[in-house]
């Protein structure tokens, strides 16, 4: 029961802040709503007993990526609101209709697809994955997924070099 209430509250927060992110005119406000959205997703991870991922979500998304966005919004001086100029061939209702139709399709698949029953939450909260979360994730990362882990570090290095080169005025 408590799990259900927590889930519905967090789900409402996630979806509400997501709608605000895409609908707010002011870009700075959109970035701040994005922080709140990420924090609500981190709360959902705690509900799913993924504590390590919740901490990563707060540190990397709410702490790192959002600050990057704020810097770009600050550097890009929006004297002329970007929504002023609009191409004549754009029809907003097409985007609404497309996303509504695809959401209906996904919901139909999920509701009638017969996915598994719920895990017993009292068992799941006391399982090894919940109690030794960091240990289990670290073990997987450094044994079975060692090569993807190293490739991810290479990817981050390449992205860092690429971002510096792109942002430099002249090489």
């Amino acid at each position, binding site marked *: 029961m408590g799990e259900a209430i927590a889930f519905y509250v967090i789900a409402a927060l996630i979806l509400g802040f997501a709608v605000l992110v*895409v609908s707010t005119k002011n870009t700075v406000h959109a970035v701040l709503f994005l922080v709140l959205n990420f924090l609500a997703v981190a709360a959902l991870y705690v509900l799913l007993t993924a504590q390590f991922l919740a901490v990563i979500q707060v540190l990397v998304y709410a702490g790192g990526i959002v600050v990057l966005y704020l810097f770009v919004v600050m550097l890009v001086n929006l004297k002329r609101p970007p929504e002023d100029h609009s191409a004549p061939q754009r029809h907003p209702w097409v985007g609404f209709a497309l996303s509504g139709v695809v959401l209906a399709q996904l919901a139909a698949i999920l509701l009638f697809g017969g996915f598994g029953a719920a895990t017993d939450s009292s068992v799941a909260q006391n399982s090894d994955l919940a109690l030794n979360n960091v240990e289990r994730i670290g073990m997987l990362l450094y044994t079975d997924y060692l090569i993807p882990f190293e490739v991810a570090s290479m990817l981050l290095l390449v992205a860092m070099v690429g971002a510096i080169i792109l942002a430099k005025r002249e090489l």
Partner: protein
Amino acid sequence: MITPTHYMLLSAALFMIGVAGVLLRRNIIVIFMSIELILNAVNINLVAFSYQLQNGIGQVFAIFVIAVAAAEAAVGLGIILAFYRNKETVNIDEMNLMRW
């Protein structure tokens, strides 16, 4: 009782809000934030199934998704800055340099 279907419906809704943001908005910074919403929707699915199956691999993949999202944000925002320096705009309708 919260089943995996609930989490997948939440994830699908968040995903489609992100897609609607990409389709409807013209400010490229907002479009990038919508892409972050889409990646978060994927992560919710992965973690929900990790919980359902009591298997840590879903959370490991969510960590990889976060790493890729960080790389994407850094490079994408670099491209936005480089473009803004040349064209003084963040409107995607005016970003048509490479359109035939």
